[in-house]
């Protein structure tokens, strides 16, 4: 094992373990601010460090500190303390490792050696995801049962039956996809979607399998216990559902686990249906071969984008009421300068690549991998936005409606989809 091997293992594992955790902040902030904007209010915009509020990110910091320092209560009536403590850990761990097999960039070739850009370079692919998300049900059931609380237990029962029933249409939707892609390896699937169809339509799963996409996304919402399928924690009838008895950091771990699961399932949806890490129309090979023009285009686009971004910050980061010497304008100036410095640094790197790098060198491979990671994260962020967007649009289902939708609508549709897909694939030979 060379040093490079070890470094690459560390890099890949860190990305697949810590990116979901870092995206917690993005998820929570996005949840709050999108909810605010959708409802014509502003969301968290007060918590700040010396007046720097970072668009609401500091609020998460405050909440995190609060949760970490709160008294961790285990009620007297909890009989199985070990299982009670184990439950949030299972929930969180299952969520994190479900992301481990998702490729966040194309296979990276360094020194003639190919590195699969996944947390764990196995090829169990989508099966791993299905298996691990199924495992996360244990966290919920253990939490609900060991809490010795009727609301918790009801919440856990609902949640468990919901997750299990939606796993079936989800798995069937995946089957029809696998018929098309011909592989369960997510890297293969992502690479497949890098091709273009008729030269201008990317061969994304959403275009190849629209029905499977709808079924899978709906089922993924249900798997994550997100609105409109969040009956497990239905506040109006179950107080908080399975995590009712949890407090402080144990509650926070549940909470984080939910958002990590949301991130992971967004990543899977992106990988299966939205081309994964692929930049539309530009295949990895094409980018590596034309590294200089790519760098040049980036060199031009980034400042232009930054110019408009700065204008947006100026417009929105100010007090919306009469105020002398508005500190928020000063705050905006600081942000804009920081961003410009960041852009400047990137520009220097791009210039260096433009000046010295040759196609098909390590630098070119790295730049493309970085661009693909950014593309992947951008797509996942957009998918996360859809999660949030749906939550603040659609009201909660009734429980019978939920089960009817799962068993009587999605399941037959998924089966039908398999037959149709299979017929077409056989017909096309």
């Amino acid at each position, binding site marked *: 094992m060379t040093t490079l091997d070890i470094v690459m293992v560390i890099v890949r594992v860190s990305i697949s373990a810590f990116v979901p955790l870092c995206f917690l902040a993005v998820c929570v902030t996005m949840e709050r601010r999108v909810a605010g904007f*959708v*409802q014509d209010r*502003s969301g968290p915009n007060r918590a700040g460090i010396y007046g720097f509020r970072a668009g609401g990110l500091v609020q998460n910091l405050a909440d995190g500190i609060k949760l970490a320092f709160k008294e961790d209560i285990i009620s007297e009536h909890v009989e199985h303390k070990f299982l009670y403590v184990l439950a949030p850990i299972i929930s969180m761990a299952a969520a994190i490792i479900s992301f481990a097999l998702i490729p966040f960039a194309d296979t990276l070739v360094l020194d003639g050696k190919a590195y699969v850009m996944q947390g764990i370079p196995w090829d169990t692919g989508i099966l791993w995801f299905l298996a691990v998300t199924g495992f996360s049900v244990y966290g919920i059931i253990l939490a609900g049962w060991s809490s010795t609380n009727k609301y918790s237990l009801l919440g856990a029962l609902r949640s468990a039956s919901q997750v299990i029933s939606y796993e079936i249409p989800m798995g069937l939707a995946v089957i029809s996809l696998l018929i098309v892609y011909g592989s369960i390896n997510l890297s293969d699937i992502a690479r497949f979607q890098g091709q273009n169809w008729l030269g201008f339509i990317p061969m994304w799963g959403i275009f190849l399998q629209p029905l499977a996409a*709808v079924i899978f996304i709906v089922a993924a919402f249900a798997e994550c216990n997100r609105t409109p399928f969040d009956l497990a924690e239905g506040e109006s009838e179950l107080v908080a559902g399975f995590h009712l008895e949890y407090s402080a950091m144990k509650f926070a771990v549940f909470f984080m686990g939910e958002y990590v699961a949301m991130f992971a399932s967004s990543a899977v949806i992106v990988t299966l249906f939205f081309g994964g890490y692929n930049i539309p129309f530009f295949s990895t090979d094409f980018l590596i071969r034309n590294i200089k023009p790519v760098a040049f285009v980036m060199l031009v686009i980034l400042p232009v984008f930054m110019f408009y971004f700065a204008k947006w910050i100026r417009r*929105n980061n100010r007090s919306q*009421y009469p*105020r002398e010497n508005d500190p928020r304008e000063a705050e905006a100036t600081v942000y804009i300068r920081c961003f410009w410095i960041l852009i400047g640094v990137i520009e220097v790197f791009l210039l260096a690549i433009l000046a010295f790098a040759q196609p098909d060198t390590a630098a070119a491979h790295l730049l493309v991998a970085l661009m693909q990671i950014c593309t992947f994260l951008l797509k996942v962020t957009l998918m996360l936005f859809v999660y949030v967007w749906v939550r603040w649009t659609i009201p909660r289902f009734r429980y019978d409606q939920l089960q009817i939708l799962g068993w009587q609508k999605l399941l037959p549709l998924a089966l039908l989809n398999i037959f149709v897909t299979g017929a077409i694939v056989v017909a096309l030979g």
Partner: protein
Amino acid sequence: MAAKVKQLPSRGGTPAEKVYLIEIFKGMGITLRHFLRNLWDNSNLYVRHYPEVQPNIPAHWRGRHRLLTHSDGTPKCVACFMCQTNCPANCIMIKAGERTDGITEKMPVSFTIDLAECIYCGYCVEACPEDAIRMDTGIYAFTSSNREEMKIEMDEMLSLKGGYTEEEYQKGLEDE
């Protein structure tokens, strides 16, 4: 006054609506429109930028309690315990004693309201036969770091001034 009832046509019967996804996308379009508008320019939010922008409190709004005084500064309260009797939250604690200023015979020796327990229903104001307690200070924000501080005493309530003129207050009562 009869409630205004607006009859809305029943929805959800047409085949397009039964597919459900179409209607969901319509709804998501509405929320997305709001989101993008506010993301583009957040100056149109229906938000009062509290605490910098203070709300305008109407006169019949029930805020913090005060005890009224006669023109010579003595409390109007005669410690009849009507407010304490009526208080649904049981947050008024009065101790009565002999009155020394010669107006009547009885006055409160101590008059404590536990604001942490008060539910601001205003029954004490309605029950008072002497118009000695009102909730017209217009003070709506009070915090403290412990429970004891939330108990306000007679002196404090006597020293509070009403937030409105007598005419505004009486008109506020009518509005209510």
